[in-house]
């Protein structure tokens, strides 16, 4: 568990509140993520973890506060959402690959369609990315022909193809069986080791403990406690953190 040196802040979240109608899902959220940092968000289901990720990616608007992504305010009504999404990749629990496209096409599509990059150059990069997630031989396969773990790795490659500053992982192993789960975790570990800024919402406590630079424990829409994994897992300060960890560890 080595903590590589962290760079400048890349995501700065201040006083964020998010409501669905009357229900407050996130309250007074503060978080700073630095370049190259690996952040894990843990906590019981329904504590607003996934919602927070969706707010960072401008998929869900926030009601109060500020989210700066690389200096751009996500809560600005005049915001070019597409500009933020080019910087922030997200990988979903259910992979959400495009079923009518092959693995290679899934990876190539956004750079070619959205960024208007040269398809030949993108294809070379996409093949390299598939190789990086160990799926170079599945380039021509459709998502329906791939296992869950393979699909999830294609989804990671697809996200990487946009050259994002940060990747959000939304419970990406929750739908996988233990074996395929491992493949995906290995891929994420390598990404983090390569210096990619990652924010993970996860229920994999052992994994969070291993790769995180900072762990946030959320419950009931608030950040209860945060700190290095050694503190959160071995010496939690808050009784709620302790109660949660007693249940899951």
């Amino acid at each position, binding site marked *: 568990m080595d903590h590589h040196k962290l760079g400048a802040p890349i995501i700065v979240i201040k006083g964020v509140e998010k409501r669905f109608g009357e229900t407050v899902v996130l309250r007074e959220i503060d978080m700073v993520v630095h370049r190259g940092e690996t952040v894990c968000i843990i906590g019981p289901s329904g504590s607003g973890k996934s919602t927070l990720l969706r707010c960072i990616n401008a998929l869900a608007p926030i009601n109060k506060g500020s989210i700066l992504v690389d200096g751009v305010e996500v809560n600005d009504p005049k915001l070019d959402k597409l500009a933020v*999404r*080019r910087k922030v990749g997200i990988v*979903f629990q259910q992979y*959400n690959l495009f*079923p009518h496209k092959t693995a290679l096409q899934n990876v190539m599509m956004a750079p070619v369609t*959205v960024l208007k990059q040269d398809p030949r150059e993108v294809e070379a990069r996409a093949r390299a990315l598939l190789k990086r997630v160990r799926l170079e031989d599945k380039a021509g396969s459709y998502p329906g022909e791939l296992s869950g773990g393979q699909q999830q790795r294609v989804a990671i490659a697809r996200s990487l193809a946009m050259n994002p500053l940060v990747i959000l992982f939304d419970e990406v192993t929750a739908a996988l069986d233990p074996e395929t789960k491992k493949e995906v975790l290995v891929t994420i570990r390598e990404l983090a080791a390569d210096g990619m800024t990652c924010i993970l919402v996860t229920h994999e406590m052992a994994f969070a403990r291993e790769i995180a630079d900072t762990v946030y424990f959320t419950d009931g829409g608030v950040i209860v406690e945060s700190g290095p994994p050694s503190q959160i897992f071995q010496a939690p300060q808050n009784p709620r953190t302790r109660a949660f960890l007693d249940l899951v560890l």
Partner: protein
Amino acid sequence: MFETKLTARGVAIAFAAAAFVAAVSLAHAETASPAAASILSLVVKWLPLIFTGFLLNLLVSVLSMAIGTVAGVPLGLAQIARHRVVQRCASAVTQFTRNAPWLVLLFLTMFLLPFQFRLFGQSIPFPAWIKAVIGLAIPVMGNVSEIVRGGVLSIPRAQWESAESLAFSPTQTVFKIILPQALKRMLPPWMNLYAILAMATPLIAIVGVQDGLTDVRGALVAENRTDLLLPLYATLLAMFFIYCYPIAMATRALERRAEVKF
């Protein structure tokens, strides 16, 4: 594989239809003795004319379908637009054109559209059959609009989100991600709609277009023989059946394939 089975079945049905016409004719031959032998030859005599009229039915059906589809696809997309006014208007037009009797729409277009129009100082005739094409294209448009709306909505929300998160614009999402997937689901109901439209085309006879049905009635008037009534109508019926049945079978095959896929 299903294609060979389909043609074999189609041929079998065609024979069955022909046998039915023949049987009906012969049954009449038994009762109406002296002129009886000539019934089959009379059917054969009028066959080319009825078939020519039938071809007009097909032409009208193809053109109506084409126009209705070209107009219905954007209308269907407008039905799911985020812009409230656009969405409401598109839904209203769709509901109105879908839920009006085809024959009434046909009459409306017949009387609303001029029989000729002027272009560059020249008057160009606007024949009745073209007006009929437009009249039938209107309900097709409404139905295609609903097929498109349903097809698009059947694609999981997660696909939109996935595309959005990759910075696809809404237009790019619709045309590159959603519609290509929805197409497979929209094809069977679209083909079904076409078969229904093809079978509804004899409605144009009522508004004065000389189609297959008009020709059958013309032949009956010319021969003035009641024993020809059944054989001639059965001939036209067989033509429609032979045309529409394979479409219905192909639709079913596609539906089955779609079921396996999803």
